[in-house]
């Protein structure tokens, strides 16, 4: 990877295939040449702290991206599977992943974090704990005991269903939906539907990885999506 040194911090320039997705800033080294900072001493202080913050986040995203393993032809030929288990084997990168989500949502009055089975169960609870929010598992059929509500969604061939406990989420709750990855967006749409049916407000969907070619973001429509890594 190429690095550009500004004020002794490294800004990692990512290759075009993987780029930063961040709500706060986007690093584009072509638009911020180093010499324009050096020439203006008054701006230096605030720019350097901004760049330092950008560098820090860039380092975290970079480490997270590198920690994800791609497995070809799983679960079937032609699919490039994005394996987050290697991210979980890097305690720094795993912590950074959680921190990036918590930093984004800590002042947004989130009362519910809904995690989609099963990899959403790995990322959701640490975020919920940090935000002081309830954690609600969204599960495959017949796993949750007691009364549930279900939402069906379409797969490539056929349909599937996800379920949520009756009473877990209440009208007026502000919800976050978490999963490891968004592909077509089918599962996330079903999750959003369940949460809205009980009268809660889905503030955002958050995933570690997005596969933009599958247009999940479009399928979510007006529901915002936040991801850390975009993988084409």
């Amino acid at each position: 990877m190429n690095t550009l040194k500004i004020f002794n911090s490294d800004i990692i320039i990512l290759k075009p295939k993987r780029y930063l997705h961040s709500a706060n800033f986007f690093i584009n080294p072509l638009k911020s040449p180093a010499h324009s900072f050096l020439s203006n001493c008054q701006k230096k202080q605030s720019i350097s702290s901004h760049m330092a913050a950008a560098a820090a986040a860039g380092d975290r995203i970079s480490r997270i991206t590198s920690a994800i393993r791609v497995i070809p032809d799983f679960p079937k030929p032609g699919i490039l599977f994005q394996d987050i288990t290697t991210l979980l084997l890097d305690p720094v990168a795993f912590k950074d992943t959680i921190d990036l989500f918590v930093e984004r949502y800590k002042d947004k009055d989130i009362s519910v974090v809904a995690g989609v089975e099963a990899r959403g169960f790995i990322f959701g609870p640490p975020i919920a704990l940090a935000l002081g929010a309830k954690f609600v598992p969204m599960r495959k059929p017949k796993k949750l005991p007691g009364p549930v509500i279900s939402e069906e969604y379409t797969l490539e061939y056929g349909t599937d269903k996800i379920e949520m406990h009756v009473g877990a989420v209440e009208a007026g709750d502000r919800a976050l939906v978490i999963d490891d990855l968004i592909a077509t967006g089918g599962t996330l749409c079903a999750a959003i539907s369940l949460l809205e049916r009980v009268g809660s407000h889905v503030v955002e969907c958050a995933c570690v990885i997005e596969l933009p070619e599958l247009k999940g973001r479009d399928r979510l429509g007006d529901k915002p999506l936040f991801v850390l890594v975009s993988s084409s």
Partner: protein
Amino acid sequence: MFAEENGLHGDPRIKAISDAIRVVPHFPKPGIMFQDITTLLLDPKAFRYTVDIFVDRYRDKNISVVAGVEARGFMFGPPIALAIGAKFVPLRKPRKLPGEVISEAYVLEYGTDCLEMHVGAVQPGESVLIVDDLVATGGTLSAAIRLLERVGAEVVECACVIGLPLVKGNWRLNGVPLYVLVEPRLDDLNMMLEQHLDDGYI
């Protein structure tokens, strides 16, 4: 061992955790009093207490791996792993993990099931904590222990939120200590014992 008998006697957090667990009768089948931890996850304080008690116990034990059993072990394991700076390794049902895996079969009431772990996730000599929401017969946890020992790791302890009283007096599984926060709150303990006896769980 139960937390109450091991330094946490009278700790109000234990009662808060126990009270937050919901019992659902006759799930997944008649006679089973299902211990539902989802209500614990809906109580941020009680969920926080659960994680804190485990973290306090394990933070100075040089544990480098927390292995969580699918799927409810995924809810408790990662927060513990993050707090103690350990890797998190999911132990999954067959064909969920991509790439190279090792498998361990275990016996169910009727038939067998299988637990899988990624090759290379755990190195020989690593110290491991296994986490699940509940231990009943210990079949699943025993399979998890075997998986980890096969790759040369040392399982320090198995930690569960809930432990059936049937395991009382048998606090080791394959020689590995078991640490449990609470017993089930049963409306009908006898009914449950009878059911388990009939099914050969004991």
